[in-house]
């Protein structure tokens, strides 16, 4: 055990190992953060959610931080609502149960591009008499534009750009552009815009709630995809899933391979022969095709794929290399001593043979993690990713399916790709250093 400890301490002499450990640590931290911040059920709800969950977001919006790198600033998307206090509502009661309410929202608009769209989601509560609202738009240069007066149904969406009456009134086809520019020059005006909503209800329990949504060109920390989903969710949740898949697959494969190789070598005879033949058969089997077939015909669940991956990866070339080492270890003096005092076969296999191989197992285990992480991503790339879980591979798949590279949505591919790459390189660097430490033959050269 002391030797093991020493070996791990010598990891600190390898800069790549330190970098690798750092990356792996960051990944684990991200995974834990993701699971704490967005519980599993919530993550699934968000990832599977449609317009009803994500209506506030624009489609195909790059992350907001690209503004840092561009001279011309893109408009940032936002949404505010009275229900959670991001927009304040002032209610003044009137006669006979009626009341008037006033909502005013002012925001600084400093981007160089017009927003894509503005929307108002109105929900109201009433028995018979519909509430009524009127909307006004105040520009930085002091103009006041009447947008609309309307009676409300319980649930209503008002799209600024689709209002035909307003188009005639402003003598324009593009309302958003008109609202944000100087009527004389036609240029965009930056500054403080204000939305003024005044409403009137005519019943005691009647109430109006407003949500104002502005779709700019950019959104949030990670941007959005074709279904308006915030990419932060799958990017965060991709970490625990990738780690779980990679670690379980590589741990399962290497440990099972080692146990089977040890059992085969120890008992010899037909057991050993069977294992060897199975390995030869398995090498001929088309691994990727079988996984694709399972995904297409049977189940795309990540756990089914994981199980099949482990099963197909046990009987491979590595069983042969383990075997060749076990054959040597089997002849060692300490095994003979164990046999002499009457140790049972299982005892020798699990307590004497296998522990000797752990130093060889660890580097292999760590270095095979990236292969499995990328395997999951590769299958997702073909559209065979888990239908429920958000993974990095699925983001790339969505991006590819929507022509992200062709249409210039680079962020959409680069974000998950960077994370996948970091994961792959992190484990590979660590595994590489471990290999050099535990394999003295490599250390000399």
């Amino acid at each position, binding site marked *: 055990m002391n030797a093991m400890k020493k070996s791990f301490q010598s990891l600190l002499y390898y800069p*790549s190992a330190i970098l*690798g450990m750092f990356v792996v640590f960051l990944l684990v931290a991200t995974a834990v953060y993701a699971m704490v911040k967005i519980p599993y059920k919530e993550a699934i709800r968000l990832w599977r959610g449609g317009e009803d969950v994500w209506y506030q977001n624009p489609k195909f919006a790059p992350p907001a931080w690209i503004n840092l790198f561009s001279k011309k600033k893109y408009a940032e998307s936002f949404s505010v609502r009275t229900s959670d206090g991001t927009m304040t509502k002032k209610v003044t009661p009137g006669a006979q149960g009626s009341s008037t309410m006033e909502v005013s929202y002012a925001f600084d608009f400093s981007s160089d591009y017009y927003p894509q769209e503005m929307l108002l989601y109105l929900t109201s509560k009433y028995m018979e008499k519909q509430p009524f609202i009127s909307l006004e738009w105040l520009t930085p240069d002091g103009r006041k534009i009447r947008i609309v007066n309307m009676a409300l149904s319980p649930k209503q969406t008002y799209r600024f750009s689709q209002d035909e009456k307003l188009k005639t009134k402003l003598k324009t086809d593009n309302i958003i552009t008109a609202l944000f520019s100087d009527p004389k020059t036609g240029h965009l005006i930056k500054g403080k815009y204000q939305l003024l909503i005044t409403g009137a209800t005519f019943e005691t329990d009647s109430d109006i709630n407003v949500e104002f949504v502005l779709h700019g060109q950019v959104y949030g920390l990670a941007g959005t995809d074709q279904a308006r989903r915030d990419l932060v969710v799958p990017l965060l949740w991709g970490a625990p899933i990738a780690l779980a898949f990679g670690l379980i697959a590589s741990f399962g494969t290497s440990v099972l391979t080692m146990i089977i190789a040890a059992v085969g070598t120890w008992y010899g005879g037909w057991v050993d022969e069977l294992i060897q*033949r199975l390995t*030869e*058969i*398995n*090498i*001929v*089997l*088309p691994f*990727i*095709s*079988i996984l*694709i*077939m*399972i995904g*297409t*015909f*049977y189940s795309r669940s990540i756990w089914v794929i994981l199980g099949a991956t482990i099963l197909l990866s046990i009987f491979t070339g590595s069983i042969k290399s383990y075997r060749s080492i076990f054959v040597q270890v089997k002849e060692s003096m300490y095994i003979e001593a164990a046999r002499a005092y009457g140790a049972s076969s299982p005892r020798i296999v699990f307590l004497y043979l296998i522990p000797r191989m752990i130093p060889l197992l660890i580097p292999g285990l760590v*270095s095979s993690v*990236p*292969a499995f992480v*990328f395997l999951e*991503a*590769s299958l997702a*790339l*073909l559209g065979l990713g888990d239908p429920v879980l958000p993974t990095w591979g699925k983001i*790339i798949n969505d991006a*590819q399916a929507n022509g992200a*590279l*062709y249409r*210039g949505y*680079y962020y959409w*591919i*680069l974000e998950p*790709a960077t994370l*996948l*790459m970091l994961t*792959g*390189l992190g*484990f*590979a*660097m660590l*595994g*590489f250093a471990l290999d050099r430490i535990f394999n003295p*033959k*490599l250390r*000399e*050269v």
Partner: protein
Amino acid sequence: MAVVAQPPLEKVITKKVHHENTFTRVARYVVVRLLTLFVTVVISIYLTIMIANMGGYVDQIMRGEIRDRVTGLIAGNSAFVKMDPAVRQKLIAERIAAEEERIGLNIPIAIRNFRYMSNALTLQLGRAINMTSDSGSKQVRLILLERLPATLLLMGISQLFLFFSSVFLALNLSRRYGNFWDKLVIALSPTSAVPPWFYGIFLILIFAALFRILPFGGMVDSPPPSNPIDYSLSVLKHLILPAVALIISSFFLSIYNYRTFFLIYSSEDYVEMAKAKGLPARDVEQRYILRPTLPNIITNFALLIITLWSGALFTETVFLWPGLGRTLYQAIGLYDIPIIVGSTIIYAYLLAMTVFLLDFIYALVDPRVKVGG
């Protein structure tokens, strides 16, 4: 004690060798080896067939599809609208039966599996269920042959370049290990943890999307140029990105592995001895380092040649390269078992043949190895 034990041991061996001559030994070895390899291939193919129809599960999918298609076809045909419903039902049932017979669904699955297998083993690849070649044939052989050149071109160029360049560079590095380039290769070898299609996406992003100097994918411009020189130039232009992706993804690890391998062999005593004798570095390298590593290098090369056949499924898909890997993927999507089995059997035969031949090649290049010995 070991010294004392050696002479009698040698005698025993020579005695044994005298008992059976080289011919019978080799012949027996060949027969046993061929039999085991054949049994291996048979079992693998049977398993592949079993998986390719998921123990009958795919039959149900195909039956449902046929029913949908035939019913839809007859319901949509105005000639049948006025027909008596009972007669129409009969017609539908007949058509479904005919279609199921065409695909072979009327035969029990166990028998069908054996038929698939015996056909596959005799390389009668048969007809595809849903796919057709570009020339309109349904012959599996023609479909695969049509895609083979594309795969051979892409995989051949990238893998051969990878093999020769990494052996050559590794030899150079092993000569002066520890210098800057050597350290660089070691530092960069973890980059091979990333698969080629992944580099492919980055390459497409940079060279196709951003700079617009190379195409996004495909194998030739559309429409294809009629002039053969323009045609090959166009193919070459399309070839660059996928080939580079395939090369980058294994380049550094491949050099690193060969380099380590050469280094282990060049620290042997007989190499030191040869150097001490004052032999030129070239001779030491060729006779004392390369020669004993030859079996391993040949194995790698042989396995590489086989992988040419299977193609690069993911890379071909990302680059829309019309090769065998992508065909296999399409075949799986269309439940086209004959194509899946056809491509697997060829791979299995190639692998078995290579494994078999390698034993003899070892004996040829390495005097210490004896066939069946």
